[in-house]
């Protein structure tokens, strides 16, 4: 009898092991299925960019190119070399760099200072000031497009990279302030108090005490701002055109321009070129990228 119970128990254990194993397989199956859904467009983009138009017409989205053909990359980046109507991404790529670097710097700097004041030099009503700034994270930019266009016109910087730097710096402030404020709030005030007793002033405390321990949040903020500004299309397309356009606008114009034959391989190469800087940052510093995403969301 007792032997019987033992064997049936073992059978049961065996059975649950098998269901467990099947469950694991199911888990991995679903996860990999979704992974292929997410990877699929990137794969298609890369493969298409390496084919000739002839191959594109004959094969399908998934077929691998018979030989790696980088010609469309060259055309996307540097054009075909004839005059009118030859649009390519190189100048706009540099426009975007010239726009992103100062805009990221200014917004990060102002955000760091504001976050510092709002947490370490608290005053009555500082919470309301924070809320006042925070609201700027959420406004639909359509509500400010018209007056912004006029303001840039009055200042004489519409359709220029400087104009876009101003726009991105200003509308980045709510986010950068949020990041720094939430980071500095977790740093003990005793550190600041002790320094104050030792006679350190406002700027000395910031540069000697807070800045040296701010590396993680600076990385988060810079990555966030870089991604946002590089990927922006609304401001770029509204406030600039022609030669001053950033890369996303140029990409869109290139893809939409209806030349006689649609060259999908060049389109895909262009899209990859426009996406590669943020993709590289994501792959190299994904941890910080995700932290920016979730802290920007959860706490704001």
């Amino acid at each position, binding site marked *: 009898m007792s032997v019987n119970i033992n064997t049936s128990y073992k059978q049961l254990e065996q059975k649950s092991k098998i269901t467990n194993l099947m469950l694991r397989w199911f888990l991995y199956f679903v996860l990999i299925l979704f992974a292929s859904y997410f990877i699929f*467009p990137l794969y298609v983009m890369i493969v298409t960019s390496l084919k000739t138009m002839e191959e594109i017409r004959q094969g399908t989205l998934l077929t691998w190119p018979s030989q790696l053909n980088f010609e469309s990359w060259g055309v996307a980046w540097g054009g075909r070399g004839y005059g009118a109507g030859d649009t390519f991404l190189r100048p706009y790529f540099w426009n975007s760099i010239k726009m992103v670097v100062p805009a990221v710097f200014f917004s990060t700097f102002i955000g760091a200072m504001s976050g510092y*004041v709002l947490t370490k030099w608290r005053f009555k009503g500082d919470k309301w000031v924070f809320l006042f700034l925070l609201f700027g994270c959420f*406004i639909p930019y359509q*509500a400010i497009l018209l*007056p912004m266009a006029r303001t840039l016109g009055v200042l004489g910087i519409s359709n220029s990279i400087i104009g876009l730097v101003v726009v991105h710096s200003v509308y980045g402030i709510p986010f950068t302030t949020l990041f720094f404020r939430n980071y500095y709030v977790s740093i003990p005030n005793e550190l600041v108090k002790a320094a104050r007793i030792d006679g350190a002033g406002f700027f000395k405390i910031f540069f000697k005490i807070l800045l040296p321990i701010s590396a993680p949040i600076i990385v988060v903020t810079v990555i966030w701002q870089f991604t946002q500004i590089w990927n922006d299309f609304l401001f770029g397309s*509204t406030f600039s055109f022609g030669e001053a356009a950033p890369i996303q606008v140029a990409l869109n114009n290139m*893809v939409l321009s209806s030349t006689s034959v649609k060259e999908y391989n060049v389109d895909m190469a262009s899209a990859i070129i426009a996406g590669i800087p943020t993709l590289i940052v994501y792959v190299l510093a994904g941890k910080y990228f995700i932290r920016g995403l979730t802290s920007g969301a*959860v706490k704001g």
Partner: protein
Amino acid sequence: MFNWLEKNLPKVVLAPAVGLISWFVYGFILWTCYISFTNSKILPKYELWGVGQYFKLWASRKWLIAVDNLLIFTALFLIICIILGIILAIFLDQKIRAEGVLRTIYLYPMALSFIVTGTAWKWILNPTLGIQKLFVDWGFENFTFDWLVNREMAIYTIVIAGVWQSAGFVMALFLAGLRSVEDEIVKAAKIDGANLFTVYWKILLPMMRPVFFTSFVILVHISIKSYDLIVALTQGGPGISTTMPALYMTQTAFHKSQVGLSAASAMMMFMAVAAVIIPYLYSELRRENVS
């Protein structure tokens, strides 16, 4: 003077941020609001005209289509992103090998711009050479997939691309939420005989209420603002079948030169966002006060 400066230095340092935001956010919104009550055409006029623009807006077929599309898009985008995000987060939470790699794959679309995404999807969904041809070549000879050029279905292509871009983000939020739950709670439930399904359905997911709330707010916010994706994928077409409020606003302002009308549409968008965001900020602030 020097004393005053020293005493008020923190406020002086904070002043640029507050000043810039007051002017460029609040001041500009007020200006847009004012203009929406005027009869401005190409150039802004400052004579008040009443609520005529709002009547005109809600009588416009294109705006009604835009609002309809926004409702369809938001509903599907929200539901699919949240369900997909939760499934991926729960599955990834089972001590999966190569979790890091999978997570990276699910989230990378967030690093790309909607223009890049839209360009890629436009090519994939292209009826002649895209996914349709793939299936036809695989032997499904009658397979058609023409949503991109079909008035009735084009809006769903935007949902497909939008979900692809944002589902990983919801996954990241839920995964972070699940990881912040103490192991003891799960262990105790398991000792009481609860199976894994019950643990998630009855205990963990109800604890994720704030994460649901956050995802809801962020996703609604993304969908009200969606503009780039539509420009890249359909440009509002075929016809005007995929117009959305953000696209309506910029087209009315910069192509049709109806400044007053576009200001009215911008204010409608602003109010829709405010209706979602203000309760959210309020609850966040309260939570912070409690803790």
